[in-house]
C-alpha cells in the first residue's frame, strides 16, 4: 500500500508552491482581484508555460498525458494561494467534457488551445429554478446531423465571464445532450457575475444559438464523470485552502496577546483548534479517497465512483464549514476585514461547498444509493 505522492508529483507540488509564494502572494492576488477582468491573463500564460493546463490532456492534443492525480496536486496548490483564474472551469470541467464527449475533430479544435493557455472554457449546467439538478435541464436543443440550436437560460456558469467556448447541457426529445457553443455565437447573451470569493461566473440567455453536439459518448455518463472530476478537484483545492486557513489561525493563536498572554494559551481555544486539526486530516483523507475513486483502474470501479465522491464531499464540506467559521471567530474582528487574508479563505471555502451541490442533498443522495456499508446482522437471516 502506497498513498504517498510519487517523485514527479512531489516535484510538481514543490515547484508550484514556491512559484505561487513569490508570484501570487496576498498583495499580488489583491491587485488581480481589483482588476477589471478579475483574473490575470499573464499568470494564465505562466501556468500554461509550466504545463499546468494540459496535464491530463493526451499528447496528441497538446497535453502532458498525465493523470488526474497531477491535476489534484495543482488544484491543492491553487487552493493554498486562492488562485482566481478559472483552472477548475477550463482545465477540469470544460477540458474533460470535450475530452470524454467530443469527436476527434472537436478535441483537435479545442484542447490544444486549452493546454497552450489560449482558450478558456466553461461548463453550463445549472438553470434558474432547478437549484443543483442537472440531469433534466429546461434548455432545449433542436436540429440534427451536426447542426443544432439551443434555447434556454443558464446560471452560475463558473468561469463563464471569460469563457471562449461553453459546454452547455440541453435536452432534445427528453434526452440529455452536451453542446459546444462559441462565446461569440449569435443569440447568446452573457451577463458576467462575480462570486463572493472573487471568482468570475456568468448567467447566459440562449435564443436559437448555433451549437455542435458532443456525441462521442453517452451524455449522462460524460456529465456524471465530469462532475465527479470537478468535485474531486474542488476537494483538492479545498484541502489547500483549509491547510492555509488552519496554519494562519494557529499562528494567530500563538502571537495575538490579550490579558498578557497569547490567546492560544486558553484551553477553550486549544481544544477547538485540535478539533479543527482533526477536521483538516479528515478532509485530506477524503480528498484522497475521491482522487482514488476518479482515477481507479480496477474493472467495475466506475459504478462506485460517484458514490465515493459524494461521501468524500460530505466530509470535506463539513471541514470547510467548521474551519472557515472557526477561523474567523478565533481571529476576532480582524477576521471580518477585507484587509486580512483569513476572510478571503472563508469566502472561497463557503462558495466551494455549494458549487456543485450542498451537503444536505449529498447526504440524501448517498443514502438513496445505499450508503457505503452493506447492512448485515449475524442474528438476522
Amino acid at each position, binding site marked *: *500500500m502506497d498513498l504517498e505522492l510519487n517523485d514527479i508529483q512531489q516535484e510538481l507540488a514543490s515547484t508550484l508552491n514556491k512559484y505561487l509564494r513569490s508570484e501570487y502572494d496576498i498583495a499580488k492576488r489583491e491587485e488581480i482581484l481589483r482588476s477589471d477582468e478579475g483574473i490575470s491573463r499573464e499568470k494564465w500564460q505562466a501556468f500554461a508555460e509550466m504545463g499546468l493546463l494540459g496535464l491530463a490532456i493526451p499528447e496528441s492534443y497538446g497535453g502532458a498525458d498525465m493523470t488526474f492525480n497531477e491535476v489534484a496536486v495543482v488544484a491543492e496548490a491553487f487552493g493554498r494561494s486562492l488562485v482566481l483564474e478559472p483552472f477548475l472551469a477550463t482545465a477540469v470541467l470544460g477540458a474533460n467534457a470535450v475530452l470524454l464527449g467530443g469527436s476527434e475533430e472537436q478535441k483537435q479544435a479545442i484542447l490544444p488551445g486549452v493546454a497552450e493557455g489560449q482558450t478558456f472554457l466553461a461548463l453550463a449546467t445549472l438553470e434558474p429554478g432547478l437549484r443543483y439538478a442537472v440531469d433534466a435541464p429546461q434548455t432545449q436543443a433542436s436540429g440534427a446531423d451536426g447542426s443544432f440550436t439551443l434555447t434556454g437560460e443558464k446560471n452560475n456558469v463558473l468561469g463563464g465571464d471569460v469563457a471562449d467556448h461553453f459546454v452547455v447541457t440541453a435536452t432534445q426529445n427528453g434526452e440529455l445532450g452536451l453542446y459546444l457553443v462559441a462565446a461569440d455565437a449569435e443569440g447568446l447573451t452573457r451577463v458576467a457575475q462575480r462570486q463572493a470569493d472573487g471568482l468570475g461566473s456568468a448567467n447566459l440567455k440562449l435564443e436559437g444559438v448555433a451549437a455542435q453536439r458532443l456525441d462521442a459518448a453517452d451524455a449522462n455518463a460524460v456529465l456524471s464523470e465530469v462532475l465527479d472530476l470537478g468535485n474531486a478537484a474542488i476537494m483538492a483545492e479545498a484541502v489547500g485552502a483549509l491547510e492555509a486557513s*488552519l496554519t494562519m489561525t494557529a499562528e494567530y493563536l500563538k502571537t495575538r496577546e490579550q490579558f498578557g498572554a497569547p490567546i492560544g494559551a486558553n484551553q477553550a481555544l*486549544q*481544544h477547538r*483548534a485540535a478539533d479543527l486539526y482533526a477536521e483538516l486530516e479528515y478532509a485530506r483523507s477524503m480528498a484522497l479517497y475521491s482522487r482514488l475513486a476518479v482515477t481507479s483502474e480496477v474493472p467495475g470501479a466506475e459504478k462506485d465512483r460517484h458514490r465515493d465522491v459524494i*461521501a468524500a464531499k460530505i466530509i470535506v464540506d463539513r471541514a470547510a464549514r467548521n474551519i472557515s467559521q472557526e477561523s474567523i471567530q478565533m481571529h476576532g474582528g480582524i477576521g471580518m476585514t477585507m484587509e486580512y487574508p483569513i476572510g478571503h479563505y472563508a469566502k472561497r471555502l463557503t462558495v466551494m461547498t455549494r458549487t456543485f451541490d450542498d451537503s444536505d442533498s449529498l447526504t440524501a443522495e448517498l443514502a438513496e444509493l445505499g450508503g457505503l456499508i452493506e447492512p448485515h446482522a449475524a442474528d438476522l437471516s
Partner: protein
Amino acid sequence: MDTLLNAEEREFAQQMRQFYRTEIPEELRLKVATGQELSKEDMVTSQRILNEHGYAVPNWPVEWGGQDWTPVQRHIWLEEMQLACVPQPLPFNVSMVGPVIATFGSQEIKERFLPATANIDIWWSQGFSEPNAGSDLASLKTTAVRQGDKYIVNGQKTWTTLGQYGDWIFNLVRTDPDVKKQAGISFLLIDMKTPGVTVRPIQLIDGGHEVNEIFFDNVEVPVENLVGEENKGWTYAKFLLGNERTGIARIGGSKVNLARAKAYAAVTKTARGTLLDDPLFSARLTKIEAELTALEMTQLRILSTQAAGSDKPDPRSSVLKLKGSQLQEDISELLVDVLGPQGLDFVSDRVQGQGLSDLPNGAVDALPGYFNTRKVTIYGGSSEVQRGIISKALLGL
C-alpha cells in the same frame, strides 16, 4: 479498501479472513457479532487458537512468538479479526505487559513470563490508575518499599478491567518519594494470590461487572519481579501507552456494528415505511458511514507514512483515538435508537415466553452497550487528553 492493497497484501488479507472464519468457533464469533458478553473461557479459547498459529502476539519480537510483519500486515491482521468478530487477544497480555517485558525485561523474566503470557496461561491485570491518579497518572501513590530481597507494597489501584479473572497484575508503584514524580516510579509484577491483595468489584452503569478496585495491604513481592531498572517505570509506562494507541480506533468493530444497526433499521417499521428510509435517521446514519470511511482513510494514510519509513511521533494517532472513540459512541447510540421503547429495559434474553412476543434483535445488548461504550472516550487517554496532545503539536503552547 482492498483495492488500495498490493497483490501480496491482498493475499495476506484473504488468508487472515479465511483463517479467522474457519479456525475460530462460530459460536464465539456470533457472541461478538451480537454484543453478548464473553466468558473468561471464551477469551482463553480464542487466544490459544490464535497463539497456536502464531497470530496472538504478532507485535512481539520474532524470538518470542512475534511475526516479522509490515505495519500494513499488522493492520490487516487486526482489521480482519474485528470484521470476523473474533474475540481479541487480551490487550493486557499482548499489547501491554508482553511488549514491556520483551523490550525492557531481563532474559530470566522474559523466559519466565512471555510464553505463558502469549498463551494466556497467565491472565494479566493492569495496575496503573488510582483513585487520585487518572489522566495525571504520574501522581500515583501506591508505594513499594525495599526490605532485603522483597518490596512491601501498599496502596490502591482502580479501574482494573477484568481483574476478577487476573492471575498476575503489572503495577506502577512509587519506589522513590523524594524525586520528581515521574522519576520515582517502578514497574512491578505481582502475583494476585499473594496475601494482602484484595479485589473488589465495581458495578458500572451498564449493569455489568467489568472493572475492579485492587487493594494492596503490606504485600510482599520478591525483587526479581521488578521489570527493568528501579525508578525507570515511567519510561516503560509511556512505551506501553504508546502501544495501546495502535488499533484503538476500532474501525473493523465499528463497521460491524454499523452494518448491524443498518440491518436492524431495514426491518424496523415506522408510520412511513422502514426506519432505514426515515429521512432524519437515514441522514444521521449516512453521515456516520461517511465519517467512518474518513477515519479508515486517515488510518491508512498513517500506515502509508509508516510504511515509507517514518517513525516520528504523529499527532494523527491522537486524531484516530479522538474520532474513532466518538464514532463508536455514535454507533452505539444508533443501535439504541433503532429499538425505540423496547430497548429501554435491561433484559437477559430477547425471548420472553409466556405467550409474549420476542423482543427485537439487539434488545439485550443495545442499551448496556451504549452505557458501556461511554468508556471509550475516557480510557486510553481521554478525548480531552488527545486534544491537548494535538494542540501541543499544532500550537506548541
